[in-house]
């Protein structure tokens, strides 16, 4: 109920202590010459607009349509992904884990928030939250159900706890009924969540729902 009040909070509430604390820290660091404002802008621009899950969707759709690329990806993901131009911070040692009919993969970092930035961008808030980090390892089926994902009871769940500098990307299964689809169309079925493993790729009928 965002419009219950007669005034607009964004303009009437004073900045929180946290906002003031961060502003003061930034001013101090700029004044002391420890950071440059334009460098901060470049960093934000990179992770807000350039590096994101579309990179990973490109990787996955290419693996679905190009068996040679898929083979290279499974063998050395860092190398294969770099061939598409995706490399850098938090993707130095990348591994791709493939979902099959009897194995489903799920990625977590129980100790902090390790995540393959180069292909997925920055992690969503829930990935960094205590509920996900605590239960992904001990109750992965329950976690998947919270995302509306139900797996075959016979299938095995492999949970990857990112404790080292290795970063994991899930290669979801290609949805049925997409045999003649182009790589570009397939990309639209590859959600970020399917590459973390909490969901499956979107079905052929769900194409375009990512924008909703």
């Amino acid at each position, binding site marked *: 109920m965002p419009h219950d009040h007669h005034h607009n909070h964004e303009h009437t509430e004073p900045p929180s202590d946290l906002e003031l604390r961060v502003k003061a820290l930034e001013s101090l660091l700029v004044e002391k010459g420890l950071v440059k404002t334009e460098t901060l802008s470049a960093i934000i621009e990179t992770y807000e607009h350039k590096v994101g899950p579309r990179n990973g969707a490109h990787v996955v759709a290419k693996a679905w349509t190009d068996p040679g690329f898929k083979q290279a990806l499974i063998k050395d993901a860092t190398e294969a992904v770099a061939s598409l131009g995706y490399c850098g911070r938090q993707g130095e040692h990348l591994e791709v884990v493939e979902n099959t009919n009897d194995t489903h993969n799920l990625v977590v970092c129980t100790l902090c928030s390790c995540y393959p930035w180069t292909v997925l961008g920055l992690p969503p808030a829930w990935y960094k939250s205590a509920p996900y980090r605590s239960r992904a390892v001990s109750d992965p089926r329950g976690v998947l159900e919270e995302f509306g994902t139900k797996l075959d009871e016979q299938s095995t769940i492999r*949970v990857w706890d990112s404790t*080292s*500098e290795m970063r994991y990307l899930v290669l979801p299964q290609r949805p049925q009924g997409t045999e003649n689809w182009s790589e570009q169309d397939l990309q639209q079925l590859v*959600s970020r969540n399917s590459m973390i493993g909490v969901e499956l790729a979107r079905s052929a009928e769900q194409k375009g729902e990512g924008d909703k």
Partner: protein
Amino acid sequence: MKGGHDLGGQLEMGPINPEPESQEPVFHADWERRVFALTLATGMLGKWNIDESRHARERQDPLAYVQNSYYENWLEGLEKLLVEKGLVSIEELGLTANTPGQTTESLSVPNPQTAQKILSFGAHSTIKTDNQPLFGNGDSVLVRASQTTGHTRVPKYAQGVIGTVVAKLGCHSFPDSNALGVHEGKFLYRVVFSGVDLWDHSSTQTEVLIDLWEPYLDGAGN
């Protein structure tokens, strides 16, 4: 002591309540954006490494760690490192920005181009060695118990549990030492654990794979 960050297997943390993927912004407030950028930019000064950075966030009251939002923990860690590394004084943090203290003569402060280059190159954690790994694929290994108050990357839930080595990942910078500023390589293994061994008899059809360094492990026969 187990820090508030070591969350694997903890109970009663509540529902996940994920935001719908298509509606979630990268940052939820402007101050988060600034904390993120300040953390990366100051990290590029080379005064601390990734494990010192993680440890700075972990060295908090465990309850505060869990209650803080994610970027609040980043801010806590960043302020701590800035003070501990002598870049900023405690007084300066408490004051307004009008009274700069120390200077930064010897530091190379990245401009946008340098920052982009650093981000796109990344930093590899592998280290060359002539040593041989103790364990091989298929070996049973027991995860040692640890009561360290320092930084470590062995989750509590795996300690005392036997798993199987499924991959040798090479020699990587050892986080426990790296967090103290000592850069040394140790062999890293991918170890698989069965859900039944980690949790209880109902956790069938579940495996957890954890990357563990050699000093965390003892042989457990075959």
